């Protein structure tokens, strides 16, 4: 009977909920930044867990004491009854002090990490490779100005080499995210943003636009291939020699038409000024998918 009343008070649901939460977090498949393939994602994951641990001093007392209180002070229970007890200096110090300390620590941590992991800040490990990214409806164009190649929906990155992305959008607000590498930044028409990333585990991953932009929003994902340096160079040579078309005005105009490419496209050039041209065009003529 007592147990039934206790169950009624929410104890079982809590236990179940915590279990469920733990399972959810532990059981993540090998996807996302909590299974990182680069230093940015790894740092973000570590930061996430460190916040979770730092929260424990404030939340564990609640999770432990609340069920005890519910049980001990239930109606007709054994606990003493002090209906007029409404203040205690010791408790006040504790309930204000503890969160202030924790938030102080976490806040300091937040500041350090935020400045340290500024997406505009180049990552250690040598001169970053430049990649320009343009979001279209519903595909991504990647320009490799140093290598002189471009692709649609296929991003090749040499492993362990820092990369600096410059992003803009040729349609509406978009948001660039490669979950396994971490980081996320908006791509906005008429504006340029930057994101520094690095892949340190070779593999094939998915990249996304996370900002809803119409019916084919979910189709706007791209393949990310983090490959060894030699394979990357071989890939660049292959694109140049494979007879892939040049990325000319006509091709750029064709990209403006909303579409979902069936397979990634490759181009044998990355013309100077193409990226800036898209930014400028957005400011002068606006963007329009239709």
């Amino acid at each position, binding site marked *: 009977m007592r147990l039934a009343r206790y169950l009624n008070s929410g104890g079982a649901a809590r236990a179940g909920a915590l279990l469920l939460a733990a399972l959810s977090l532990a*059981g993540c498949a090998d996807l996302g930044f909590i299974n990182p393939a680069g230093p940015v994602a790894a740092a973000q994951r570590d930061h996430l867990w460190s916040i979770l641990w730092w929260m424990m001093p404030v939340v564990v007392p609640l999770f432990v004491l609340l069920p005890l209180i519910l049980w001990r002070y239930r109606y007709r229970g054994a606990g003493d*009854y002090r209906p*007029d007890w409404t203040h205690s200096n010791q408790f006040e110090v504790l309930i204000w002090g503890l969160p202030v300390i924790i938030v102080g620590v976490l806040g300091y941590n*937040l500041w350090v990490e*935020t400045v340290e992991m500024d997406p505009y800040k180049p990552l250690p490990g040598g001169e970053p490779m430049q990649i320009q990214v343009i979001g279209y409806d519903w595909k991504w164009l990647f320009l490799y100005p140093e290598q002189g190649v471009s692709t649609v929906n296929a991003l090749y990155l040499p492993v362990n080499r820092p990369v600096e992305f410059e992003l803009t959008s040729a349609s509406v*607000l978009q948001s660039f995210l490669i979950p396994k590498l971490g980081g996320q930044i908006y791509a906005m028409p008429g504006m340029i943003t930057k994101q520094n990333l690095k892949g340190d585990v070779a593999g094939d991953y998915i990249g996304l636009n996370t900002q809803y932009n119409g019916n084919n929003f979910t189709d706007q994902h791209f393949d990310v291939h983090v490959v060894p340096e030699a394979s990357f160079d071989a890939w660049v040579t292959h694109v140049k020699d494979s007879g892939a078309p040049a990325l000319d005005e006509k091709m750029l105009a064709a990209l403006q038409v909303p579409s979902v490419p069936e397979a990634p496209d490759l181009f044998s050039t990355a013309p100077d000024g193409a990226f800036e041209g898209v930014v400028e065009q957005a400011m002068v003529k606006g963007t329009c*998918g239709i």
Partner: protein
Amino acid sequence: MSDWYWIFGNLKWNSLVFFHAFESPSASEEIAAGAALMVILGGLWLVWLLTVKGWWRPLWRDWLTSPDHKKIGIMYVVVALVMLARAVAEAVVMRLQQAVAVNDPGFLSADHFGQLFSTHGTIMIFFMAMPFLTGVINYVMPQQIGARDVSFPVMNAVSLALTTAGAVLVMVSLVFGQFETGGWTAYPPYTGIRFSPGEGVDYWIWAVSLSSIGTTLSGINFAVTIYKERAPGMTLMRMPLFTWTTLCTAILMIFAMIPLTAATAMLALDRYAGFHFFTTDKGGDMMNYANLFWLFGHPEVYILILPAFGVFSEVIPVFSGKRLYGYTSLVWATMAIAVLSFTVWLHHFFTMGQSANLNAVFGFATMTIGVPTGVKVYDWMLTMYRGRLRFTTAMLFSVMFLVTFVVGGITGVMLANPTVDFATHNTLFLVAHFHNMLIPGLLFGMIAAMQFWFPKAFGFRLDERWGKISFWCWSIGFYVAFMPLYALGLMGAMRRSFEWYQPEFLPYLVVAAGGALLILCGLIALFVQLWVSVKHRDQLRVPAGDPWDAHSLEWMSAAPAPEWNFAVIPEVHGREAFLEAKRDGTAYLPPERYEDIHLPAHSAMAPLIGVGALALGFGLTWHIWWMVAAGFIGIWAVVIARSFVTDTGHVIPADVVQREHERWLELVRNTPAVDRGVEQQSENLGHAEAVI
């Protein structure tokens, strides 16, 4: 432009949703047509019911034209419950779609899915949460401070009319045309005229504008009422906590709704008049919209949550049989939250590319909100400490709120960190987080409020058995539905996805869909509870007015309370005014003398303005300019006509007040006082034996 443009604007025969179901039948179109049919049949059923029962006149005379804050409050809650039903149904459809859409298009069209998440969010925030809390505040706050009504009773009715017009506009969008697909935030340039040329965004703009104007008026009304109408002796630091949270909410409403109204007005100018506030070209800047929207949007979060905090601060002490722990701390914490809520809006777009220091400032500000919120949680826990806890439905929802809200708080502190936000922005982690805040922090609060104050409003309690069934479905359903979304978000699953390409997501999505169905059961149980309670109202009645041995002034009258709330305005000597009166033995004493009571007169102004606003909104949406003109002129004609009405009140003679009051006092005397052990049984007639 068709020949009929001057009459029908852009509205065409094929704007009717049914048209598509006939022309290109598919599951998606049939669901849309079914929803439209439900709106129409629901409307027809209502008309039939009102006609058969002969309720048209009472509806108009006693409710629609009433300036009584209690009736306005109840009508707000009715609007909220209707909209809640629709928005939960939409959520279930979306969860089912996502669960079957792994490498499969599922049963909805992408466009339909876009409309679903947009209406779900818009309704839940503007037409479920806002009316619900505004209704509860309306019902409770004036009685809690010992007032006879709000300061501007007719304006109060106008607020309700505007909000309802907005809600009707969203409902109408089920039948005529499409809603927008840009989400409840409707970010341009996607919602600009180039990318969303149809009527969908216009529906959103006008529905939200009506709601935000109504809410601004409510905010002014509540703040003025609290400042000016408190009973003698009720100093600010003697106000019940719910009144305190109402005051903070009202202040937030006054300041936060304006940026929203400005943003929707500017978006409308972009769309209708070729302006360039948020376009990409000609100097427009879409991120200004993001700034304005979240300058509203973040305080809005606390507009939603603070009233629920107030509810818990009333429910927990009452069902703990104990005075509230840490009143002063709770007041300061509430004020701190209200102030801080204006300093954090940028955390909704850490990913815009601004400097790291700027992000750090807003991230840190966001995190500091954790302090007062944590204090509150501890205060409620310490209120239960050394109490005698009675687990009624209202109390169960409050306890479940505490636990669940803390889980959401943890993820909230995580998301306050720009670094973590970069990885989880726009993912289901975020979706899980804000549902984790708003379902316990708003909805559980409102459901608890309904369970708690329903007997005050209608004179009978709600059925506890169905209440508890509903509680379990909501609670378990919440965890089953949203914990998997956290995991999905960490794995990089985007929000607003109508289709998936990662088979790993499937088990999580299926579980989440199951959770959504449980929540639906919880909602149905809530409606069954209402029905069962009405049916068994004779066994549940509590006419003496104090079914819970409560603490604050609103319980110091019959249930339901007379139109004038208090026969004589009570004198307040402490924080728990009614509790102290019960202890002193002064709660049920007849006053020395009675006086005439002046009350606001009924007025047709509000419902007429509501009709005008609906015409205005619908006309603007479909470019039916004569309707726009009629609505606009109609509204102002009513306002001007009203300004000539000099007799805006009516008087309740002292002897009527006396008769009514003495009847209640006699009823209390003849009602056996019961102890809390039988609180949930039919012996409880609303006269509490003092425990404390």
